[in-house]
């Protein structure tokens, strides 16, 4: 049985924990709004880009002149997994869920005899993957200094990916990130970026004149489309991170509240018991006289 003093200290400490989690929740809520706005603002560009590239790709696909970013290297031997996680923890299962699907994919590919290379974005994923897939890590992009994710950050990642692709270091690249569904639901999603995936029904709806030629435009556009996809993934991931942190901290705040209630009851009962005990001692002392 803890003493009254201990209980009191315990209650105080849980109260200050609750204050911290509450504050973190509110910070996450504010950041979430900003992140969502950023994701929303980037959407028109990404959609238009996808439209045009899909239309172009559908008409060029299959021809011998298709750029390598679209047609691939003709092999599927080496896979690059770009795993995007957060720079910080305390956001529920956010980081683990991405790492889980990335690890699952990596193990499956290794089982099939493929070569796997992993590029991590965000410190947390790297820490988790280093343990069992450390030998496959080929690079890391640190965004811990970045306050607000911009297009330049996406360009930094994509230029690294292109560099590796040009050097023939991989055949297929897939990005893993959390798609923002709502505050309580973020869906870990893999997206293949190289070679570009073209939906089956992507045939051009309108017949466009192309200036310069289709191939030249595609050559110019594909790297941008890939960068845009990475940018979208970064933004979605940012919003998801804040959403996950917000709900995790909300849970923590509520748990702390429950715990305070329980401890307070325990404290009151112990106090009452101590008082009763003293009274009994006094009364029985008086009766003995």
């Amino acid at each position: 049985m803890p003493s009254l003093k201990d209980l009191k200290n315990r209650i105080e400490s849980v109260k200050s924990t609750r204050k911290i989690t509450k504050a973190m929740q509110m910070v996450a809520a504010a950041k979430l709004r900003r992140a969502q706005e950023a994701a929303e603002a980037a959407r028109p560009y990404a959609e238009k880009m996808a439209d045009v590239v899909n239309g172009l790709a559908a008409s060029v696909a299959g021809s011998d002149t298709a750029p390598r970013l679209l047609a691939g290297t003709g092999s599927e031997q080496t896979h690059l997994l770009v795993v995007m996680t957060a720079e910080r923890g305390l956001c529920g299962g956010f980081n683990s869920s991405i790492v889980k699907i990335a690890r699952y994919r990596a193990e499956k590919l290794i089982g099939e005899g493929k070569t796997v290379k992993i590029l991590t974005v965000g410190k947390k994923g790297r820490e988790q993957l280093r343990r069992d897939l450390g030998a496959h890590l080929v690079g890391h992009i640190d965004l811990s200094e970045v306050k607000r994710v911009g297009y330049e950050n996406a360009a930094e990642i994509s230029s690294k990916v292109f560099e590796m692709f040009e050097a023939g270091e991989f055949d297929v690249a897939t990005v893993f990130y959390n798609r923002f569904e709502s505050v309580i639901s973020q869906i870990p999603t893999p997206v293949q970026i190289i070679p570009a995936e073209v939906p089956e029904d992507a045939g051009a709806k309108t017949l466009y004149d192309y200036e310069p030629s289709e191939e030249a435009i595609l050559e110019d556009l594909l790297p941008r489309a890939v960068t845009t996809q990475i940018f979208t993934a970064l933004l979605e991931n940012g919003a998801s991170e804040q959403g996950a942190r917000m709900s995790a901290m909300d849970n923590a705040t509520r748990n702390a509240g429950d715990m305070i209630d329980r401890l307070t009851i325990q404290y009151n009962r112990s106090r009452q018991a101590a008082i009763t005990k003293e009274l009994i001692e006094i009364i029985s002392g008086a009766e003995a006289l």
Partner: protein
Amino acid sequence: MAEMMQFDLVSPERKLASGQVRAVQIPGAEGDLTAMPEHAPTITTLRPGVLVTEGAEGEARYVVTGGFAEITPEATSVLAERAYGADAEGRAALEAILTETREKAAALTGPDKDAMDKIAEDLARTIDTIS
């Protein structure tokens, strides 16, 4: 024939302009072109240059550094890599990009260098135009 058409100027990070316009002058990679309502569907890449829109409230000028434009009879969408208003702020931003491009060009050789040089040249001309 429609008098006005929808015009959107978007960069990866945000939508810069959106509204009804009579005409848009676009700095295409193969030469300038002006898109008006009922223009034949065209997709063109951009070079660094000045983009002018003629709307109901008069002319608006923007500078773009590259990207592409999708023109349809009803609407024109410009997807610029980077875009700014044609003002002092845009000029400062362009100058920074120009310095960067020249540095990159200096490090390259062959056709890559020529392409980079051309971008720098276009940028310099754009800066002259708006200042």
